């Protein structure tokens, strides 16, 4: 059963990857010509991106190999480990112990008010282990995001495609701005974030020192 669950994880990942290729055109619409944005403008865009990716709504599931998700309860700002002894395991979906989807059901319906668990149209999961954001500086995250070895093999256009693909599935990224009443959201909107990623990409993905 455990092996089956893990196999299903990889199978569903492959299906999502194929769907991503089909949806690649959507991401291409957002892409700006390389070099059309100055490095200074790109760095300004990165500062806005940094504010998004370091927000608890986005960073709390981008954790290290210990795979312990982080909670920032509504009304609090200090992070704490996910309750109930939860960890995502090597599968990153909790297949080895208790799947995330036991409570974070897969659904495209709007999120309920806090403290009900969040959900999305994609099976709930931690981000891949090489995509660590929680506890990292903006410069460290910037270096990771532009490194195809640590970002799922994506160039700047691929990152935009990733955003649109995720949104097409009512996934985690746009839902960061629709987490249900009582929860804070990252600055701006999802569309602002897509535009900033396009600006940053066209500027050559500059990172702060």
């Amino acid at each position: 059963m455990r092996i089956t669950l893990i196999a299903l994880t990889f199978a569903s990942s492959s299906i999502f990857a194929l769907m991503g290729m089909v949806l690649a055109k959507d991401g291409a619409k957002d892409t700006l010509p390389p070099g059309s944005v100055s490095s200074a403008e790109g760095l300004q865009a990165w500062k806005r991106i940094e504010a998004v990716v370091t927000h608890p709504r986005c960073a709390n599931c981008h954790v290290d190999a210990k795979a312990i998700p982080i909670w920032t309860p509504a009304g609090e700002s200090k992070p704490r480990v996910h309750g109930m002894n939860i960890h995502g395991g090597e599968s990153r979906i909790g297949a080895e112990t208790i799947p995330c989807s036991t409570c974070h059901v897969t659904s495209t319906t709007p999120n309920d008010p806090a403290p009900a668990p969040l959900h999305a149209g994609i099976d709930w999961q931690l981000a891949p282990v090489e995509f660590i954001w929680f506890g990292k500086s903006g410069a460290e995250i910037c270096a990771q995001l532009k490194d195809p070895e640590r970002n799922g093999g994506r160039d700047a256009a691929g990152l935009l495609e990733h955003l649109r693909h995720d949104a097409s599935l009512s996934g985690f990224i746009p839902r960061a701005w629709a987490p249900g009443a009582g929860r804070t959201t990252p600055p701006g909107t999802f569309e602002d974030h897509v535009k900033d990623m396009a600006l940053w990409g066209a500027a050559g993905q500059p990172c702060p020192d």
Partner: protein
Amino acid sequence: MFDITVNGVKHQVDVVPEMPLLWVLRDELGITSPKYGCGIAQCGACTVQVDGAAVRSCQARMADIAGKAIITIEAVGNGKLHPVQEAWIEHQVPQCGYCQTGQIMQAISLLKSNPKPTDEDINEVMSGNLCRCGTYERIRAAIHTAAEKIGGN
């Protein structure tokens, strides 16, 4: 109108798409073994199986689970007691009993994926199922006994 199969029996229910499975089971179908504890997946009292996986039925919306197979504690033993239920009786696990159907449904799910769990394995999987009476020691012992029963069959 949604199709739903509960314990092998097909039903059609005329409910709003957002209705939680827990309400469908209890109020529409009269199956009251899944309990309402918190309504926010913090206690586990409403746990059932959806297509073989333990799920908090207070969180599963009807529109998302239509057509799937739901199993509640009434059907886990196929007409007799499931080894986990037998172990629960042997260890006299329940006190008030309110959380126990959820505990048993989660324990069955645990033993499907991990037939010989350690204490640590049990703690990891069962920590989302709360018991205000504090029967955790007996729950852990009963799961070990159930593992032996299932392994011996």
